[in-house]
């Protein structure tokens, strides 16, 4: 138990091999040191999943953690974190999902869940306040995510249960299969769904009514809520644009700057932009704005395809990243095709980003004659071939035919094909690139190269450069920028709050706003310096996890395309991040971080962060 507000003070440990279920206390010292969410996730993962563990073996674990802000009424605090060793990268991966699951788990009385071992038969876990059961899932094994949820809700006869599930893709161990939450959100990236599938765990169902979330300083907290609601109402993007268009306004915005990933990033201007713009998606697809727990921004949308071969298809989204990966990247200019691809990925449970990037890679292989129709199950996999594209999405989701090859991800595919395809395999550390340009932002170049999970746009953020606040064409000062943004993203993922209010809380560096918020909820009494240390502790421990797996400076790199091929056209024509530029930024970044020139944390740095045990293991 804990004296701090916001937390339940307890986690669940469930061993699927032995069936043993234990409730463990979270000590005040652990909470002060690691905070929640991301912090607790890496703390447990580093200690319990050791070097060389096969991600799909019994020894890997799935950790699910909330933070002290989840289940409170502070705006946009719905995110729950999933932490594991990734089958895609063989390194650390974290992924965060919105919805109502995080809050429900807190109301049930738990800050997190550790899942270890492996079940012989398909099972699902049911958590209802004090009562935990491991139940037979043979009837739902093989079902898509929304059907899985419906079946469980019917079986438990309670329509307010929240369900986290894998679809058939996780069961079939697609390298980038993911975990669905509430039928409407996804801890999308890194292959956590396959880890769950390898344990024969189909779902986790939660119903929570027994635990009240306490706030340390109620008066201050009430004032903060009033302040933030005011800021949200005054911000047009947060109060109007997101609820109308979701994040899809980014498509045209990026295209206008000449940094929209197109044709496997051969170029960054898409001629078919009108068909996939925010306006097109709003008109053709979006039906209603919906929201995560406690969020007044309401950026998600229920959508329906109203014409064409996939008429009647219903689902959530698509949001920007999917419009990029299944749209411009594969040269699809029809938003209904994106929506159909999105639906397959969502229901089967695969990451839309890795799916799109993997297909775009194969499209370029086909274009260059490295692969022919007979290698691709007879598919003419041209860029923009809508029928072939949808068939590819289906095959990947089923992990069969050429889909079985694509399901491995672009790094492994390019290694197996060879013939220079490595040059256009768009990944960092095996994790496919998200929808924000590398060449178009010097800061993001460094951020992507150094992100612990890989080609993620969530450790370094593009917004400080896209807004013009920082000059995206210039390498100078970018090492410090990346360090500062990393500091706030680690805090964001530990409190937790959503990227949508990142700008309001503060995106570049930790300041009194972060401290006031966490102290009002928990009563911990952090200073800015101590909170800064927490965020560095989290980042360094993630780095140590990867170093222990053999990753170092050589892995902090970028796809050859972005270091050697300048953007060929458009407003950002000529931009490229050379190896020399990257090396200079890396040297500067490692120095700021307190790491050696090979990107390994020094003993001094780890000792200063109270990570002596990690230092002993890793150095």
């Amino acid at each position, binding site marked *: 138990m804990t004296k701090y507000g916001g937390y339940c003070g307890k986690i669940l440990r469930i061993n699927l091999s032995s069936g043993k279920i234990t409730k463990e206390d979270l000590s005040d010292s652990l909470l002060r040191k690691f905070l929640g969410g991301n912090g607790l996730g890496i703390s447990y993962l580093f200690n319990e999943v050791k070097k060389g563990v096969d991600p799909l073996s019994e020894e890997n674990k799935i950790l699910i953690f909330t933070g002290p802000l989840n289940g409170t009424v502070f705006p946009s605090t719905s995110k729950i974190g999933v932490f594991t060793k990734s089958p895609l990268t063989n390194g650390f991966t974290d992924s965060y999902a919105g919805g*109502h699951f995080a809050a429900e788990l807190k109301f049930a009385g738990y800050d997190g869940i550790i899942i270890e071992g492996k079940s012989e038969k398909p099972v699902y876990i049911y958590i209802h306040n004090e009562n935990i059961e491991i139940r037979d899932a043979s009837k739902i094994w093989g079902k898509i995510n929304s059907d899985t949820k419906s079946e469980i809700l019917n079986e438990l006869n309670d329509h307010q249960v929240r369900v986290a599930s894998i679809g058939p893709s996780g069961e079939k161990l697609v390298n980038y299969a993911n975990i669905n939450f509430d039928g409407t959100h996804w801890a999308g990236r890194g292959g956590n769904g396959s880890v769950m599938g390898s344990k024969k765990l189909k779902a986790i169902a939660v119903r929570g*009514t027994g635990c*009240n979330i306490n*706030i340390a300083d109620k008066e201050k907290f009430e004032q903060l809520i009033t302040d933030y609601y005011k800021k949200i109402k005054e911000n047009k993007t947060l109060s109007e644009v997101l*609820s109308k268009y979701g994040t899809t306004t980014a498509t045209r915005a990026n295209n206008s700057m000449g940094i929209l990933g197109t044709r496997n990033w051969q170029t960054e201007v898409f001629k078919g932009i009108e068909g996939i713009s925010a306006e097109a998606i709003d008109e053709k697809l979006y039906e209603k704005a919906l929201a995560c*727990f406690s969020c007044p921004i309401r950026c998600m949308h229920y959508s329906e395809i109203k014409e064409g071969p996939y008429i009647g298809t219903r689902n959530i989204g698509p949001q920007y990243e999917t419009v990029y990966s299944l749209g411009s990247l594969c040269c699809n200019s029809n938003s209904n095709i994106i929506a159909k691809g999105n639906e397959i990925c969502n229901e089967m449970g695969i990451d839309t980003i890795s799916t799109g990037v993997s297909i775009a890679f194969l499209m370029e292989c086909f274009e260059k004659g490295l692969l022919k129709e007979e290698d691709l199950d007879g598919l003419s996999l041209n860029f923009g071939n809508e029928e072939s594209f949808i068939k590819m999405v289906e095959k990947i989701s089923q992990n069969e035919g050429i889909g079985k090859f694509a399901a491995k991800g672009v790094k492994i595919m390019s290694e197996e094909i060879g013939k220079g395809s490595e040059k256009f395999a768009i990944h960092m550390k095996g994790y496919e690139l998200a929808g924000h340009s590398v060449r178009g932002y010097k800061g993001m170049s460094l951020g992507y190269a150094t992100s612990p999970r890989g080609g993620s746009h969530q450790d370094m953020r593009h917004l400080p450069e896209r807004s013009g606040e920082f000059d995206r064409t210039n390498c100078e000062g970018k090492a410090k920028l990346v360090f500062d943004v990393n500091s706030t993203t680690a805090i964001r993922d530990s409190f937790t709050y959503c990227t949508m209010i990142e700008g309001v809380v503060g995106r570049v560096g930790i300041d009194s706003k972060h401290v006031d918020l966490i102290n009002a909820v928990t009563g911990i009494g952090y200073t800015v310096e101590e909170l800064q240390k927490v965020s560095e502790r989290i980042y360094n421990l993630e780095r140590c996890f990867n170093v222990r797996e053999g990753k170092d400076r050589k892995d902090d790199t970028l796809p050859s395309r972005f270091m050697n091929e300048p953007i060929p056209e458009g407003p950002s024509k000529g931009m490229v991040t050379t190896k020399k530029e990257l090396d200079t930024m890396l040297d500067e970044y490692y120095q700021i971080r307190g790491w050696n020139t090979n990107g390994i944390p020094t003993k001094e740095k780890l000792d200063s962060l109270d990570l002596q045990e990690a230092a002993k293991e890793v150095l």
Partner: protein
Amino acid sequence: MKKLKWDKKLCTGCRVCESICAFSHEGVINPILSRIRIAPLGKYEETQKSTICQQCKDAECVKACPTDALKIDIKKGYVTFTEDDCIGCSACVEACPFSAIFMHPEKNTALKCDLCGGFPKCVEHCLSGALKVIEY
């Protein structure tokens, strides 16, 4: 009289109304302590169901209450609840045709919407505009 009006088409299912109701009345957050309830419906939670006190002019809960803890206050415009007078019999819960009155699981007194004295917190924090106060 006054009551809350809920627009199903605008409701996004965020449940800020539940959280702020619980927090402002009870000082902690737990939807089970809220006087307003929103539940998800539909395969993709694309629609919601609400349970809201209708502040009835001829309220059944008032008729059922043996102690006068529940009263129709014409001047204020809603059905008031005085916690000190509540004996926890839950006759009001049985009587309400909307199932919109609940029992506090620990205190065993009624959880009854009081429109926060006229300026409901749920309405204030509902940025989609789904919740409003209306005269009827």
